[in-house]
């Protein structure tokens, strides 16, 4: 049992036992079978050999296994070493064979975890590398476009995973990152520049940028920062800057012409204000123009349109200017009594300007040239013209004197008679000097004509012929006067004869009563003077005067006694006297401009010539040898006589008072055609005062209430009304008593 238990415990012992028993069994079998010993030996050898074979195989196997383990250890060690070297680390494990812990398996067991550990670390390191590398790659790919990018360092170099290398990579990454940010900054800068350019030029920034690179237009996301993009951006900037410069030049040119035009045409400030932003940039440099759309095509077109509008305006203004200059020329001609170039030439010139065939400036220049020429000629004519003026005024005075001499009542004393006498005296002196004046004028004119080889014309008529005519006329008049004198002498003889017959000598003065005659002639004289200015409209004047106002005072009574009591009684007007004298004065004043006018504007007012004296105009063929002036004077005289006649006709059956009234009325009548209306606009042209009496239509009193006043009996001023001031009863009574 004991051995059995031993056997059972040790399999080898068991196997040995089993082998012995099996051999025994075999011996028994063999005995039974009767095998020969040879056979038995052969079989036992075979068995032995078989056993050996099995052992040999096992040893080989074990041997192979050992070798394998050894190799594994060596490999692991080699790998470990490689990893360590790659990671730039001192090998952790150096095998010391004598120190080896024992079996190969144990050795392997210790080395494997180390390897594992190192492998893990290497993997980590590699990942780190990869990460950095990836970043580098990414940035590289961003910076360099794919085409120029060479994938040289695509893979991580497994042999060098040292920290130093990692650091190196990190440095590279940093520098790349810096470059990237630099580039980004540059791109953004470019984009900013481009944006401001686009703003000023009025272009779509997004579109411009998209053309360079689509990524730039997006507000989010990374921007392309490749060399290509930067170059393109720079190129775009360059391009638009050039455009900007061009446009700026254009705008500044426009602004310059605009300023010139404004200046030329005095364009109102309000109108200028709209383009102030244009003109203020006239001297700005490129970078100073930053206002959005300042250089956009639309804006430039807008400014261009304004400039062309101004140009057009200028063209029309030029015509205006030309016309103005033309009228200036005419004015000078008129003043110097020369005949300007014909109107049609001017119209042709203007038409030419309008059609654009001629530069208005050149026309203007021509006119200015003409003006200068005319001015020069005017200067040479001045002396003669002054003499002509003097001659003409002398002639006028001569005419007046003639007329005055014909007035038989001229020596009757009346108000202002001394002045008329003085005038007559002056006129006589002037007339005496006339022939000498004419002669001097003629010789002067002749000298002038000889010097210049042209005729001296006065309003288109040769002055010499005018003078000649005048001389002839004068001679005729002289003869006429002589004839009259003879006739008078004859008459005197007849009267003397009659006196001899009847013994009485009727004085021509006694034909009319002194006072009455004087007044009438006075009225007539003023009428005559009046009618020189134009036809007189005589409208009956309604009596607008409140009868209650009739309060003649002492002064009036005194005057009335002396002169025209009845007039005052019939027309209880407080300012009658003043008005009478004022009226006459007013007529004088009113008459003056008209007279002057007839001198200056002979050509202008043909219509008025019927009534107006037209001095020294050519004698029309239908006229007799007498000048217009005398004709008109005669005409006037006829009229005057008629007036006198009618007055006498009317007055004869009536009493004296009404006669005087009508005469006074005559004087106070408003000469409608001569009244110079007050211009509503302020003017520096002085205007004659309206000293004439109340106009034909009853005036409307503004604010004053004359009717009310009469009703109330007491007048109040505006201030009294406003202050509510009422005269106390006592005052009223005393006033009424007074």
């Amino acid at each position, binding site marked *: 049992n004991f051995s059995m238990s031993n056997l059972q415990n040790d399999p080898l012992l068991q196997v040995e036992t089993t082998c012995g028993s099996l051999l025994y069994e075999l011996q028994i079998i063999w005995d039974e079978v009767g095998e020969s010993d040879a056979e038995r030996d052969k079989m036992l050898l075979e068995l032995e050999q078989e056993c050996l074979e099995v052992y040999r195989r096992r040893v080989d196997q074990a041997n192979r296994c050992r070798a394998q383990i050894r190799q594994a250890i060596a490999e692991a060690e080699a790998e470990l070493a490689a990893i360590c070297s790659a990671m730039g680390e001192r090998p952790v494990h150096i095998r010391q064979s004598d120190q080896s812990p024992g079996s190969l398996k144990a050795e392997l067991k210790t080395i494997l975890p180390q390897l594992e550990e190192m492998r893990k670390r290497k993997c980590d390191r590699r990942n780190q590398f990869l990460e950095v590398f990836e970043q580098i790659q990414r940035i590289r790919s961003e910076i360099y476009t794919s085409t120029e990018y060479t994938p040289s360092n695509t893979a991580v170099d497994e042999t060098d995973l040292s920290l130093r290398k990692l650091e190196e990579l990190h440095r590279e990454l940093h520098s790349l990152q810096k470059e990237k940010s630099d580039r980004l900054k540059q791109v953004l800068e470019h984009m900013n520049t481009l944006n401001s350019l686009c703003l000023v030029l009025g272009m779509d920034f997004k579109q411009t940028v998209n053309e360079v690179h689509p990524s730039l237009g997006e507000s989010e996301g990374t921007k392309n920062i490749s060399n290509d993009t930067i170059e393109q951006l720079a190129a775009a900037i360059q391009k638009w800057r050039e455009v900007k410069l061009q446009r700026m030049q254009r705008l500044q040119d426009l602004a310059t012409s605009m300023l010139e035009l404004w200046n030329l045409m005095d364009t109102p400030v309000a109108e200028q204000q709209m383009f102030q932003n244009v003109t203020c940039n006239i001297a700005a440099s490129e970078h100073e123009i930053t206002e959005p759309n300042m250089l956009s095509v639309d804006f430039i077109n807008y400014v261009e349109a304004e400039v062309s509008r101004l140009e057009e305006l200028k063209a029309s203004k030029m015509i205006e200017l030309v016309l103005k200059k033309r009228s200036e020329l005419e004015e000078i001609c008129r003043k110097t009594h020369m005949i300007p170039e014909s109107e049609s030439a001017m119209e042709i010139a203007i038409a030419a300007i309008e059609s654009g065939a001629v530069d208005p400036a050149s026309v203007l220049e021509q006119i200015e040239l003409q003006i200068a020429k005319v001015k020069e000629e005017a200067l040479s004519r001045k002396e003669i013209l002054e003499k002509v003026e003097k001659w003409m005024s002398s002639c006028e005075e001569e005419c007046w004197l003639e007329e005055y001499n014909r007035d038989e009542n001229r020596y009757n004393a009346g108000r202002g008679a001394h002045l008329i006498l003085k005038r007559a005296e002056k006129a006589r002196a002037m007339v005496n000097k006339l022939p000498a004046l004419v002669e001097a004028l003629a010789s002067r004119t002749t000298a002038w004509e000889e010097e210049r080889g042209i005729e001296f014309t006065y309003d288109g008529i040769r002055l010499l012929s005018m003078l000649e005519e005048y001389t002839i006329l004068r001679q005729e008049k002289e003869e006429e006067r002589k004839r009259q004198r003879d006739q008078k002498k004859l008459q005197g003889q007849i009267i003397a004869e009659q006196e001899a017959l009847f013994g009485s000598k009727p004085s021509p003065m006694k034909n009319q009563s002194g006072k009455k005659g004087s007044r009438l002639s006075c009225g007539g004289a003023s009428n005559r003077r009046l009618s020189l200015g134009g036809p007189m409209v005589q409208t009956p004047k309604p009596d607008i005067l409140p009868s209650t106002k009739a309060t003649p005072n002492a002064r009036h009574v005194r005057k009335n006694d002396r002169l025209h009591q009845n007039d005052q009684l019939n027309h209880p007007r407080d300012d009658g006297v003043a008005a009478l004298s004022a009226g006459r004065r007013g007529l004088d004043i009113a008459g003056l401009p008209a007279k002057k006018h007839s001198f200056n504007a002979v050509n202008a007012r043909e219509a008025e010539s019927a009534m107006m004296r037209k001095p020294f105009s050519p004698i029309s063929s239908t006229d007799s040898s007498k000048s217009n002036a005398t004709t008109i004077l005669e005409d006037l005289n006829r009229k005057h006589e008629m007036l006198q006649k009618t007055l006498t006709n009317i007055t004869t059956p009536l009493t004296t008072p009404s006669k005087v009234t009508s005469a006074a009325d005559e004087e106070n009548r408003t000469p409608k055609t001569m009244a110079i209306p007050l211009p509503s606009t302020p003017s520096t042209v002085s205007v004659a005062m309206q000293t004439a009496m109340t106009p034909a239509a009853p005036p409307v009193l503004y604010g*004053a209430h004359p009717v009310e006043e009469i009703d109330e009996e007491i007048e109040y001023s505006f201030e009294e009304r406003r202050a509510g001031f009422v005269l106390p009863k006592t005052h009223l009574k005393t006033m009424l008593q007074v």
Partner: protein
Amino acid sequence: IRIGDRKYHDGGTTGRWAGAREPPSDGISNLRFSNHSDHLLVSSWDKSVRLYDASANLLRGEFMHGGPVLDCCFHDDSSGFSASADNTVRRLVFNYGREDILGRHDAPVRCIEYSYATGQVITGSWDKTLKCWDPRGANGPDRSLVGTYTQPERVYSLSLVGNRLVVATAGRHVNVYDLRNMSQPEQRRESSLKYQTRCVRCYPNGTGYALSSVEGRVAMEFFDVSEAGQAKKYAFKCHRKSEAGRDIVYPVNAIAFHPIYGTFATGGCDGYVNVWDGNNKKRLYQYSKYPTSVAALSFSRDGRLLAVASSYTYEEGDKPHEPDGIFVRSVNEVEVKPKPKAYPNPTT
């Protein structure tokens, strides 16, 4: 300058318009330039007298009265006088803002003048009297009153030149006094114009006076009573408008003589100011229309400025009207200088 309005006028040659604060809040009764500076004294229906510096465009002082102020005048540059509807005559001292009552009338005081010749203040009132005051004896009304002179009617306008005083009253009376003998008028006249007198102003040369009426007319009168002297007088129409064949005639509220040229400006209810040359009987200039009636006019001492009170004068009673304003304009010589006659007139 338009006092009270910051409106600028771009009308080129006609003068400058600027503005100051605080114009009178009611109608302007009169305004006068000082004889020593460009100070402007303005009396108003808003019961105030205001002193402006026209060149600096400043309100210098203000005095409030018990009633509307109908007239004011300067004493010297530092004091003045006012005539009020509360019957008082006051003396105003600008520097101290002090005022004292010189005396009283029995009715509103319409006009006031200070005579440099006599050193007296002369007031005219609707109580039909003229009073002379001595402002130096301003201790009490009894001591300052020099004399009271009865007038035929309520006094409407006064004007002084040298020792001559012209008093225009209701009823178209005109009395001419010699200040040295006020016991009775030197001349008693009736207005040459047949309607109520609005304003009377003496010629600066002392030979006569201009008188305007409510019926758009001004009479030019002469003191010289000789026939030759009176022959010179005349009247002329002005401040009229022809509308639909009818003449609208406006009252002529104000006359102001130019201190240097002797030409004069008239202001009417038509809102126009005309400048006339009385010797040559010419109108020299018409200023563009003012917003409402021209109530008062005054040339500055050198005639370079013209103050115009554009203020409704109640000619049509209480009715809505344009705001009252004071315009101070610079005067161009061409507007006021007499023009020699263009043509020698042998009859004058």
